[in-house]
Structure formats: structure tokens, C-alpha cells
């Protein structure tokens, strides 16, 4: 393997990790910290993408303005959903799951009614750069830096600010936090809103590279949940490390064909064969299989494993 191939593979791995971090960051707060199985997380992502679409296509704002707007809009949607629905269901995990599924259907329906069930694209002006013989989109580097800054920002927010301390206290022990004078319902609301806003930001950032369609959320929700589950109890660092491991596997299997199976069908041009590995959904399947095997070996997830060793 030549040096430029190695470089492009490294960039693709980085890109896979970036996407997993973007998808999982909001869910790390909502599911990892608050233990809310939010099946509408994918629709928060979709709502972020559609905010950008509306801003660029219909309000004629610049792309960056749409992307700044998306987390605010989706965060507001998240806060509204928390206040109207989820607040009434804390401590009832199954009911939350079904209620958020309902929210997910409602949001898909609303978005379809407004924008129609067609796939739309968002034009953007960045080009490619050269890695030896290959060219690689510059936008992916922008995505990686945004994902890294979001991750760092959330980490600093929860680690060092008064809000972060209160939110962590609320999640660790709501009654104790409440007795110490923290407005716990407000903390739950803001954390949920932040999680929703981060999903909206992820949707906004990824909107230019994927087809924007009302049902797009379903394609991402499984990977987001798997990443957070594999991350384990130390939510943010766990999510980062599981995104790294799973992204590595996903990128490699998506890129390289492991072997081929002839199928004897009628193809043009013949012969008909299925290549195992070498396409995006084999990457996803490998990610799921690897995650299930990893959880068999490390039931507490990656960060639970470090914790035990300390």
C-alpha cells in the first residue's frame, strides 16, 4: 500500500469517527446521562438539516448562518418536548420510549407535510484537496474540526462551569441536588435541550453531504445508540473512545472488500458477485457485530472497563 493510499484511508477513518461523534454527542447527554431512550433523536437530526435547508433555500441566508441557527431551533423544539411530554414520564423508561417514538412519527409527518417526501440537496462552495493521487473533500476536515470543538465545548461545560456542576449533581442524585437548592426540573430541561440542540447541530453540519429527506433520521439512530452504549458509564470520554474504535472498524470495512461471492444471477455485465465489505452498509453491519462482541467481553462498555482497572 502506497503512502497516499494510507493517507486517504487515515482520512476516511477520521471521517467515520467524526460522523459517529456528531451523531452520538447529543444522545450521550440524553441517553448516556439522563437515561432517556429518546427515539426522536434521529428526527432532531433531521430537523437540524431542514433548518439549514430552509435558511439557505427559502430565507436566502448564508450557509454558516443556517448552521448556527439549527442548534437553537432544534434546542427549542427539544425543550418544548421535554416540558410537554418527557417531564411527565421520568422514571418510566418504557413509556418514554413509546412517547418519543410518537414524537418521532409526528415530526416526520410534520416535516413531510411542509417540505414533501423528496430528497433535497444543499449546495456548498468548498472544493477538494489532493492527497497524492487522490482528491479529498475539504468540507470533511471542517466537519472534523467542528465535531472536535463541540466535544471539547460540552466537556468543558460539564466539567468546569456552574451549570455543568449543577447538571451533573441533578443527574447523579436529583433529590439531594434539589435539597441543596438546585432547580432540578430546570436542569433536566436544559440538559435535554442541549442534547437536542447538539443533534440539530449534527444534522446541520451533515446536511450538505447527505440527502435531506424527512425520513433520514432512521438511518443514523441505530449507530448513535450503539456508540453511546459501547461508550459506557463515563459518558463523554466513553463516547469519544467508542466512536474512535467503531469508526475505525466501520471505515476499514466500508473501504476494503474482504472477499467476493458469486451469485449466479443475471447481471450486466456478468458475472454477478456480491463483495463482502467495500460498501457503506457492510461498514454498519461490521460496526454492529463488533459492538455486540465488544459488549460480551466488556459488559460495562469501554469506559466501564477502564474504571474497573483503576
Amino acid at each position, binding site marked *: 500500500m502506497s503512502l497516499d493510499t494510507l493517507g486517504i484511508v487515515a482520512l476516511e477513518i477520521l471521517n467515520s469517527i467524526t460522523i459517529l461523534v456528531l451523531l452520538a454527542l447529543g444522545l450521550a447527554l440524553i441517553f448516556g446521562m439522563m437515561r432517556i*431512550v429518546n427515539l426522536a433523536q434521529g428526527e432532531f437530526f433531521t430537523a437540524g438539516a431542514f433548518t439549514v435547508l430552509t435558511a439557505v433555500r427559502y430565507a436566502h441566508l448564508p450557509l454558516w448562518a443556517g448552521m448556527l441557527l439549527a442548534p437553537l431551533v432544534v434546542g427549542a423544539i427539544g425543550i418544548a418536548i421535554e416540558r410537554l411530554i418527557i417531564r411527565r414520564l421520568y422514571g418510566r423508561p418504557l413509556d418514554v420510549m413509546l412517547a418519543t417514538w410518537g414524537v418521532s412519527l409526528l415530526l416526520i409527518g410534520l416535516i413531510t407535510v411542509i417540505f414533501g417526501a423528496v430528497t433535497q440537496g444543499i449546495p456548498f462552495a468548498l472544493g477538494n484537496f489532493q492527497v497524492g493521487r487522490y482528491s479529498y473533500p475539504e468540507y470533511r476536515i471542517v466537519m472534523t474540526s467542528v465535531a472536535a470543538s463541540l466535544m471539547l465545548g460540552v466537556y468543558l461545560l460539564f466539567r468546569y462551569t456552574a451549570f455543568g456542576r449543577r447538571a451533573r449533581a441533578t443527574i447523579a442524585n436529583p433529590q439531594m441536588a434539589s435539597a441543596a437548592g438546585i432547580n432540578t426540573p430546570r436542569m433536566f430541561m436544559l440538559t435535554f435541550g442541549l442534547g437536542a440542540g447538539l443533534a440539530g447541530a449534527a444534522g446541520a453540519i451533515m446536511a450538505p453531504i447527505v440527502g435531506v429527506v424527512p425520513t433520514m433520521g432512521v438511518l443514523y439512530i441505530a449507530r448513535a445508540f450503539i456508540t453511546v452504549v459501547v461508550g459506557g458509564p463515563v459518558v463523554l470520554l466513553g463516547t469519544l473512545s467508542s466512536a474512535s474504535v467503531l469508526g475505525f472498524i466501520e471505515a476499514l470495512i466500508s473501504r476494503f472488500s474482504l472477499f467476493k461471492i458469486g451469485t449466479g444471477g443475471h447481471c450486466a455485465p456478468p458475472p454477478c458477485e456480491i463483495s463482502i465489505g467495500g460498501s457503506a452498509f457492510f461498514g454498519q453491519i461490521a460496526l454492529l457485530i463488533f459492538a455486540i462482541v465488544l459488549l460480551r467481553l466488556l459488559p460495562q462498555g469501554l469506559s466501564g472497563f477502564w474504571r474497573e482497572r483503576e
Partner: protein
Amino acid sequence: MRRPSSTEALAALLLLLPLLAVPWAFKPYTANVLAVYMIYGILALSLSLIWGYAGIMSFGQTAFFGIGAYAYGAIGLNLIHRTHQTHLALLGGLLAATLLAAVVGYFMFYGRISDVYASIITMALTLVLFAFAVSTGGDEWVIGVARFGGFNGMFGQGESSQNIANFQIPPVTVWLPGMAAPFPFKINRESAAGYFLVLGVSGVMYVLARALLASRLGRVAIGIRENEARVASLGYDTRFYKLALFTIAGAIAGLAGMLFAAWGRFVNPDRFGLGFAASTVVYVLLGGRTTLLGQTPLDPVLQWREQLISTDDVTNGIAIENPSRMYIPDE
């Protein structure tokens, strides 16, 4: 544990008798629609078995349903023209669902993955299978003459596809030694055999589930639901019992999937989708998690409601989603 009372046996009989009369009392359309409701009822029963009795909430029970359906379709399409029966297809579909449930169950329960994580793993499983089934639209995705077909669902190809009847997944067809001709279980103006097949399987599955719950496996499962640590400290390997029940439930879901593919002569990726997975959970919730009998009568009511205000139309914009609505009378 709650023993199946004589009241419940009576309720089961009262439910069964009117259902037996349906093909004579109504048009084939009604029998056809009721059959698919009962198929969904079998799927709900499989979820009720592990969720209501062992406390394992499998959000992706539809993964086993879909695998059963696809495996039956692939084998059935290939063999129906050679052997004129679907014995092997039935066996293959059942085997595929059972194996998948056993493997996933092994990794989950022997990794001691608990409550909500088990729901998420199974949900991820069904969603990844959805993503997989959707991506199989290309020409290379064939097994013999069976094309996966991506979003459009599975159908046959090649010379036989000139005839629409050969183009579809075959109905359950039996040709035992001693029979003059193969017998297909269809539902049309001449025959209600397919309806009685589904009704019979529903009944057998119900009795089987009852027997299972009365056995040692069922009693230990209920103990696990109530207090897993205590059952473990009494010397039971709870992992094994969970795995066993999960595998059996997966097999039952796979059976329902095969009946579905044979009933609609069609299967598409939506059987793996989040919508179908969540509706199954809703049916079980509303039917009562522990009343196995509750699943069957409630299902038609909910399905009928769904046909009136179909959410699927909003999300997909296509009416093909619910095959019972594109019902074309069989010749």
C-alpha cells in the same frame, strides 16, 4: 404463578369458534385481512413471551420476523419450480430466525447486558437489517432466482418471471408422499386453506406458549422477571434460561414472518423498520404483557384503526406499504 384458568380456556374457545366460521360468513377479502392480523398476533405473542414473562424487552422482535420472511422467500422462490413444495423453505426460514436469535441472545445474556441495553441492541439489530435490506437493490443481490430488490421487496427473476404467479414468493405448499398433487395454502374464492393454516398455527403457538410457561423453563423465567439475583443465588444459571426463552421467542417470530411472506407473497424492508417494531411493542402493551390471549383479538382492532388513519402513508407517501390494502384476488 398464575395457572391458565378454565375462564381463559373458555375465552380461547369463544374466540376460536367465530374465527372458524369466517370463510363461510364473509368474502375472501375478510379472511385475507384477518389472516395477516393473526400473523401479527403470533409475532406479538412471541414478544409477550419474553417481555411479559422473562422481563426482556426486545424492541427488535421484528428482526427475527423479517429474517424468517426473507429466508422463506429466497428458498421458496428457488425451489418451488423444482420440488413444487415449500418444506425446505419453511425449515430454512425457521432455522435462520432461530440461529440469529440464539447468536444475538448469547452475546447479550452471556455479556450480562441488562434491561434497556437489551432493548437497544435488538432495536439496533432490526434497524441495521433494515439498512441492509434497503441497500440490496442492485442486480448482484440475488440468491439463485430470488432478487432482494431493495426498497421494492423480494421477487423472482429469470424465465419464470414472465408469469406473475412465478414472480412472487410462493404460498405455503405441501406435497407429502401419498398426495396426488401439491397442496398450496391460499386464500381465494375457492379455498380458505391459508386462513385455516394461520388460524391453526396461532392456536398451536398459543397452546405451546402456555405449555412452555407451565414448564420448568417458564417458571424460572418468571422468577428472573421478579428477582434475577435471587434466582441466580438459588443456583439457576439465569443466562441460560434467558437465552433459551429468547431463542424460542425468536423462532416463533420467524414462523410469523414466514407466514407473512407466504400470505402476502411479498416481503420488503419495512418489516425491519422502526415503525413495525414499535407497533409490535404497542400491541403487546395494549393487549397486556402477560395475557398471551390478549394479543390475538386486539390486533385486528388496532390494525383496522391503522388502516383508517395510516401513518405509513405520511412517512412513505406510498400505499404499497400495507399489502392488505393492495389486495388483488388470487386466481
